[in-house]
C-alpha cells in the first residue's frame, strides 16, 4: 500500500501548488506509516519535487499534450492500481476538481474535496473539510477501500526533505472523450486560483473605466484581480473574475477588497484567505467585521498612494 500524489503541471511546468501538496503528502505518509509516490503527467521539471520525501517519482508520458480529464483520470486510475495506492492525493484547481469525480468513479474510491488538514484519525480515516462555502467545517469519515483526498489551497506548510527519490518515466495510452477546439489562456498573469495576493474591486469603484486603479495595485504586488458579484452582473468585469459563493472561491495569503461592502455571499467565498484588507468609504460596511486590517477612506485617494508606496518599496 502507498500514498499516491498527483502533481499537476501546465505546458510541461509544475503548477505552483505542487510543492505544498508534496509537503502534505510526505506528512500524510509519515502519519500513515507508508510509502509516498508522486505522479506527474507530461511534466518536464518533475525532478523539482525530488526533495519532498517521496520514494518514487513517476512521470507519465501521454500523447494528449494538454489536460483532458477523462484521459488523465484513466491514466491515474491505472497507476494507482499498479502502485497499490490506498490514499490518492489531489489539489483543488479547476482541473483537479474536474478530474477527481471521474477518478473516484473509476476506482470506486471514497472521495472528499476541500480538505483543510491532515487526517485527525486513521481508523476510520477522518478528515476535516470546509462546507457551506467556508461558513463551517465538517469532520468526515471515509469508507472506501481506496480514498481520494482533495486538499484545499494554502492550508499546509511547505517543507522540503533530504530524500532519495528515484525518477521514472512511463508511457501510457489512453483515449480522450473531449477534443480541444481552442484554448485561451492568460500568459504569465497570476490567476485567482494560485496567486499569493488577490486585489478585488466592487461597486465602490463607480465604473469599469476606473479598473486601472485595481490593475496598477495588482501589478505591483504580482496579484490576480477579482471582483464582486454586482460588478460582474453589470458587465464591468468578466464572470471569470467574480469571487464569492456562486463565483470562484479564494484561498490566498492576502486579499485586498476595495469598495466591496461584504455581503454574506461574498464573505463566504473569500473567508479562506489568510489576511483580509478592506478599503471602503462606509465605516459600517459589514466587511470590516470580517477583515484583519481596514482603511475607512476613498479608494480613489487610497489606492494610488498605496500603489505608489509599494512601488517605491520594491
Amino acid at each position, binding site marked *: 500500500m502507498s500514498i499516491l500524489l498527483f502533481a499537476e503541471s501546465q505546458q510541461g511546468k509544475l503548477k505552483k501548488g505542487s510543492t505544498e501538496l508534496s509537503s502534505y503528502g510526505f506528512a500524510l505518509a509519515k502519519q500513515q506509516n507508508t510509502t509516498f509516490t508522486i505522479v506527474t503527467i507530461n511534466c518536464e521539471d518533475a525532478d523539482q519535487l525530488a526533495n519532498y520525501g517521496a520514494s518514487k517519482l513517476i512521470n507519465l508520458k501521454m500523447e494528449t499534450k494538454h489536460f483532458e480529464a477523462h484521459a488523465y483520470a484513466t491514466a491515474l486510475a491505472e497507476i494507482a492500481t499498479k502502485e497499490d495506492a490506498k490514499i490518492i492525493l489531489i489539489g483543488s484547481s479547476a482541473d483537479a476538481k474536474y478530474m477527481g469525480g471521474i477518478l473516484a468513479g473509476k476506482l470506486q474510491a471514497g*472521495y472528499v474535496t476541500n480538505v483543510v488538514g491532515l487526517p485527525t484519525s486513521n481508523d476510520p480515516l477522518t478528515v476535516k473539510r470546509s462546507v457551506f462555502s467556508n*461558513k*463551517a467545517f*465538517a469532520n*468526515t469519515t471515509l469508507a472506501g477501500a481506496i480514498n481520494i483526498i482533495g486538499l484545499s489551497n494554502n492550508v499546509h506548510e511547505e517543507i522540503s526533505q533530504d530524500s532519495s527519490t528515484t525518477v521514472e518515466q512511463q508511457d501510457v495510452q489512453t483515449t480522450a472523450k473531449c477534443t480541444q477546439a481552442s*484554448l485561451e489562456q492568460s500568459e504569465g498573469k497570476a490567476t485567482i486560483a494560485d496567486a499569493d495576493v488577490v486585489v478585488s474591486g466592487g461597486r465602490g469603484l463607480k465604473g469599469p473605466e476606473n479598473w486601472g486603479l485595481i490593475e496598477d495595485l495588482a501589478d505591483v504586488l504580482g496579484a490576480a484581480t477579482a471582483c464582486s458579484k454586482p460588478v460582474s452582473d453589470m458587465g464591468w468585469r468578466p464572470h471569470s473574475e467574480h469571487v464569492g459563493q456562486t463565483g470562484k472561491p479564494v484561498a490566498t495569503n492576502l486579499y485586498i477588497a476595495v469598495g466591496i461592502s461584504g455581503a454574506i*455571499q461574498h464573505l463566504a467565498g473569500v473567508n479562506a484567505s489568510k489576511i483580509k484588507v478592506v478599503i471602503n468609504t462606509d465605516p459600517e460596511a459589514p466587511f470590516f467585521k470580517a477583515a484583519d*486590517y481596514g482603511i475607512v477612506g476613498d479608494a480613489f485617494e487610497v489606492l494610488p498612494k498605496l500603489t505608489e508606496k509599494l512601488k517605491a518599496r520594491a
Partner: protein
Amino acid sequence: MNQPTYYELYKLLCTHNNLKIFFIFVFHLFLMKILVCISCVPDTTSKINFKENDTVFDDQGVQFVINPNDEFGLTRAIWFKEKVGAFVDVLHVGQASADPTLRKALAIGADKAIRIDTPALDAFVVADQISNYLQANPYDLIIAGRESIDYNGSMVPGLVAAKCDIAFVNTCVQLEIDGSTATATREMDGGMEVLSVDLPLIIGSQKGLVEENDLRIPNMRGIMQARQKPLEVVTAVESLAKSAIQNFEKPAPKAAVKLIPADDIDQLIDLLQNEAKVL
C-alpha cells in the same frame, strides 16, 4: 412572421387530442432530451447553524432553494426547449421536503420532475441513483451544478460520468448543440477552453451558461401549470455511502479589525510586512 420553432409546432399539434399520442411519439424521436439534476440548498443568505451536538444542520427558519449552479443549468435547458425544442426533466435525489423546490422547477418551464426517494447521504449515493436512473432512461444531455453551495462536494457529475461512461465537461460556461455533437466552453484557472464532444454529455453548470438576469421567477400561470405536470416518485436502488459526516465545527471567531487612518498608508504596509508577514 417568425418561423415557428419545433417546440411551438409540437404544442400546436398536441392540441389535437387524437393526434397527441402519435405526435408525442414522433417528437420524442427528434427532440433532444435533457435531464437537469437539482439539489435543494439553504438560500445564500442563510445563517449556518447546527443542532444535536453539532451533528445535524439546523434548518429552522432556513429557506431552501434550487442550488444556484443547478438553476443556471436549468435555465439554459429551458432556453434550449424554447429555442430549438427539447424535453426538460428535473431529477432530485432526496425526500419529500424537496417537492416544493421541484414544483418551482416545473413552474419555470421543466416538463417533468422525478424524485428518487432516499436520503441523499453523500455524493456516492446520489451519483449511484442518478446513474441507475439513466441506464433505464437515456438522455442526450445531463446537467448538474458544478457544486452545491451547501456541502461544496463538486463530485456528483464526475461520478455519474464515470459510472455511465459518458463524456463530462465541468465548469461549463457556454454550450451549443448541433445534432449529436456539443461545443462546450470550460472555465479553467486563468483561461477558457472550447471542447468538442459527442452526446450524450454531462456538464457541470455554473454562472455564464446563462446570466443572472436570465434566471426566472415563476409566474402565476407557470405555478398553475406546474400543478398539472408529473412529479414521479421513484423507489431508490440499494447503494452505500462512502463517506459520513461525524460532526460540524464553526470557524473560530475573528479578532476585531485593525483600523488604519486613510492618510497613514505606511502603517498599513508596515503591518502587512512585519505583523501579518504577507508582503
